[in-house]
């Protein structure tokens, strides 16, 4: 088993699905869906195998593969995983699989939809496992661009505007990354793009690090929904179809945070130390700001979109503490938020598919009409509030512990943000899920058993890591050294 290039297999799993989707005729919708679901299942199983095979005691990067790609200028197809990548790979596999299942009822242009979606997933896998800056960026762009057609074709509510805005925002991020990433290569002597090598201490002078770090942080930060460059994100969420929202918030935004962690902080620690207070401040503002703005939204998805801004603020705050606890918490939060938001969008998507309405004010007492479907939403909401028993509680706890230590005032502000988080989430629950019934929606039907599967998986994951956080933290800790 260990001889198999398991990382390459998991990477090319969605690509195979992509090719198969392209080759299948449009009319065989079920076959297309099955192929993608199967690919999702396989990658889920593979990511679990990777999890189990990863030797936490040894730590570091494992299952490495290294093939010269453009060897003249040192580009290698270098892949490998450490504890953080393992976690995020699993996240991506979960969201991929559940995302495909959530879109089972799709009828419009099925073939193209799944083609773009599998391409996106391919890119995300690539980012999480690549160890070469060029390869990383290659996959990064592969992951970002399919969002445009996915939102513009299958979306709703100003979809073309939103898709364009999202894409341009992310490309501005890439524009910052280009000089930042290449400068790493050139400054290090133009020999290698390998992240592991570049992360070695003393590669870069302090002045250089301080100069380049903001380019990388902001470049990745835009994708991570960093305040004040977040406004593409909620708009994109609102316009995107269910599974795309799931992938977007669940995985894509994590790419940004992962990039910050792996490249910006990993390669430029001195730069990170210099800029940490500034960016921690932005992150804290994001936490509180997102919560407040969410309080005034009337669209389900806008609420969740701004909650993402707020929750990603927690991730970024954790990263900026630059310590073991903060990093542990941030990565855990990346995972927890990914699953939680996927669940959120999955639940909202189910309601929207039937009602074609997402205005909170038009609903009421949904729990009486579709108790099972709404219970998914309630679960996600509880997780969003950081209720113990759900994964995000531990993540937030760790981040707050670190933040209070490193940036006490910001830590207090961030913790106080919990109150407003509860306020906006309860507002939605109170208005739409509970309260007097709106007879208009009496006809709604519960999800079929098949459609509940993905949601149940997501809930199970949240609860599992909520009850047994040590499983997750042992894995992350193998990198951060906090075991």
């Amino acid at each position, binding site marked *: 088993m260990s001889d198999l290039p398991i990382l390459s297999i998991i990477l090319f799993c969605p690509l195979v699905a992509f090719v198969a989707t392209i080759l299948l005729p449009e009319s065989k919708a079920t076959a297309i869906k099955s192929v993608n679901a199967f690919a999702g299942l396989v990658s889920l199983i593979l990511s679990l195998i990777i999890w189990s095979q990863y030797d936490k005691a040894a730590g570091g990067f494992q299952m490495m593969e290294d093939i010269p790609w453009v060897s003249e200028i040192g580009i290698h197809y270098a892949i490998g995983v450490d504890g953080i990548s393992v976690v995020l790979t699993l996240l991506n596999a979960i969201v991929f699989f559940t995302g495909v299942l959530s879109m089972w009822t799709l009828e419009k242009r099925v073939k193209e939809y799944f083609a773009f979606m599998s391409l996106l997933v391919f890119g995300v896998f690539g980012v999480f496992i690549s160890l070469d800056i060029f390869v990383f960026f290659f996959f990064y*762009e592969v992951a970002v661009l399919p969002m445009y057609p996915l939102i513009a074709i299958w979306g709703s509510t100003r979809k073309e505007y939103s898709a364009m805005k999202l894409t341009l925002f992310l490309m501005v991020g890439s524009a910052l990354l280009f000089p930042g990433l290449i400068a790493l290569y050139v400054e290090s002597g133009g020999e290698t793009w390998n992240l592991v090598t570049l992360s070695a201490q003393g590669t870069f002078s302090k002045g250089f690090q301080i100069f380049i770090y903001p380019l990388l942080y902001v470049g990745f930060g835009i994708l991570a929904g960093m305040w004040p460059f977040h406004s593409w994100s909620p708009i994109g969420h609102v316009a995107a179809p269910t599974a795309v929202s799931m992938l977007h918030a669940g995985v894509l935004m994590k790419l940004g945070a992962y990039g910050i962690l792996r490249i910006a902080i990993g390669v430029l620690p001195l730069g990170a130390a210099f800029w940490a207070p500034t960016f921690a401040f932005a992150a804290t503002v994001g936490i509180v700001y997102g919560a407040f703005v969410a309080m005034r939204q009337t669209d389900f998805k806008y609420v969740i979109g701004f909650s993402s801004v707020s929750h990603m603020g927690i991730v970024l705050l954790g990263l900026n503490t630059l310590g073991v606890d903060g990093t542990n918490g941030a990565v855990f939060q990346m995972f927890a938020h990914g699953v939680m938001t996927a669940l959120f969008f999955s639940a909202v998507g189910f309601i929207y598919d039937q009602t074609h309405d997402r205005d909170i004010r038009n609903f009421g007492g949904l729990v009486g009409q579709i108790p099972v479907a709404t219970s998914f939403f309630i679960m996600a909401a509880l997780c969003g509030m950081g209720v113990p028993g759900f994964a995000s509680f531990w993540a937030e706890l760790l981040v707050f512990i670190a933040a209070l230590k490193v940036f006490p005032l910001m830590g207090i502000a961030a913790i106080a943000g919990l109150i407003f988080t509860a306020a906006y989430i309860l507002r939605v629950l109170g208005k739409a899920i509970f309260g007097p019934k709106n007879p208009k929606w009496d006809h709604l039907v519960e999800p079929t058993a098949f459609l509940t599967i993905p949601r149940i998986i997501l809930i199970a994951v949240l609860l599992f890591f909520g009850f047994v956080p040590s499983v997750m933290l042992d894995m992350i800790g193998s990198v951060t050294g906090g075991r």
Partner: protein
Amino acid sequence: MNSPELFCPEFALLLGALLSFACAAIGTSARTAWMVSLAAAIIAVGTSALALPYEGQPFFADIYTVDAFSQVLKLGISMALLFAIAIAQRQDSTCSQARPEVHFFFYLSSLGMMMLVSATELLTLYVALELSAYGLYILAALHRRERIGSEAAAKYILFGAAASAISLYGISLIYGATQTTYIAQIASSGGSPLLIAGIVLTLAGVLYKLAAFPVHAWAPDTYQGAPHEASVFLGTASKVAAVGLLLRVLSMAGSEAEFLRTTLIVVSVLSMSVGNLSALFQKDFKRLLGFSAVAHAGYLLLGLLCFSKLGAAAAIFYVLTYVPIVVCAFLVISAISTNGCNPSIASLAGLYKRSPLLGLVLLVAMFGLAGIPPTPGLAGKWFLFSAVIENGHLWLVLVAAINATISLYYYLMVVKAAYLAPPEDDEGEIRLSPTYAITAFVAIALVVFMGFYPAPIWTLASTAASALF
């Protein structure tokens, strides 16, 4: 090695030129002329590929150099020629009596381009420059809707003649400064202000070929007014030749490159900005590609202004990968054009449904131009930017990358038109001829292959560059 076989790619083109001239002269049908021409083009590509490792000087010493650099670019030119001829199968926009005759001009012009990339002496270079241009001038005039065709050609030739006259004046100054016309000798002569002035003026004609600011204005007009196959030839082969030419010309500066570099930085930034910003509003697809060509000239200059091996290699890589991408775009244009009308962006509506293959081709083209993987556009930009940063111009990369973001807007508008809008009622499915289908597959396969695995092309490009630096 010093033998005629060094000249074999050029011979192949000469043969093609003669054959197609013969076809035109004896009045064969357009289809026969096309088939002959296609066959000759395939031979030309084959010969160029075989001739890749050649090195030597077939004529007088130092006038005409066959080296890795020239051979790689010749392969690029012959590939572009082949694609252009394949696209010429339909000739929807070419005026009917000229249809059998376009091939002759293709070959003539490509011959000039091949000589251009091998020329290492200024007179040879100038002759080749003119030779490559004449064919294009005529091709531009052959649009079926003659008013726009002749206007495009008139603008092209008069602007071109003026630019080449400025170039010649510059060459005369170079000659005055160094008393020689051999590039190698000029480069080693030690710089003088007069030499720099001469090179700057010479750039007029060279940048004209590349369609870079400030001699770019012909590009959109001519792209729009020329027949489709002429536009694609103009957009691909001409660009490849221009890169070769520019590298030769710049190499004359020797160690005195600083002023030129500053000039080129300004030219590069203005080219991409003007190109991208102007493209934002275009409604005619070909015109949009014309502006996009201006922008890409700006990107290419990024590599050239580095005066380094990495930069040259990056520029060559970029232009080589640029060929099939542009071919993809024009393939769509030529395939959906009806009655010689240029397709507008809006007329792409519903392309995904009318022809899924063309939709995919268009997607690949637009992603390629925008630099989105899995097309080689990303790797190309990455290499270019690496060269620039190696040169120490971080901010220039930032400007270029932001420009790329701007360009994404209009490329996505094209994608949006093709993928989002439903087809017009009266427009049915588009049937592709086998040639077009094969061309489409080959082009996509090339693009995606180079996107996923840029190493072979990079090896070619970097070998080529090492012949210069």
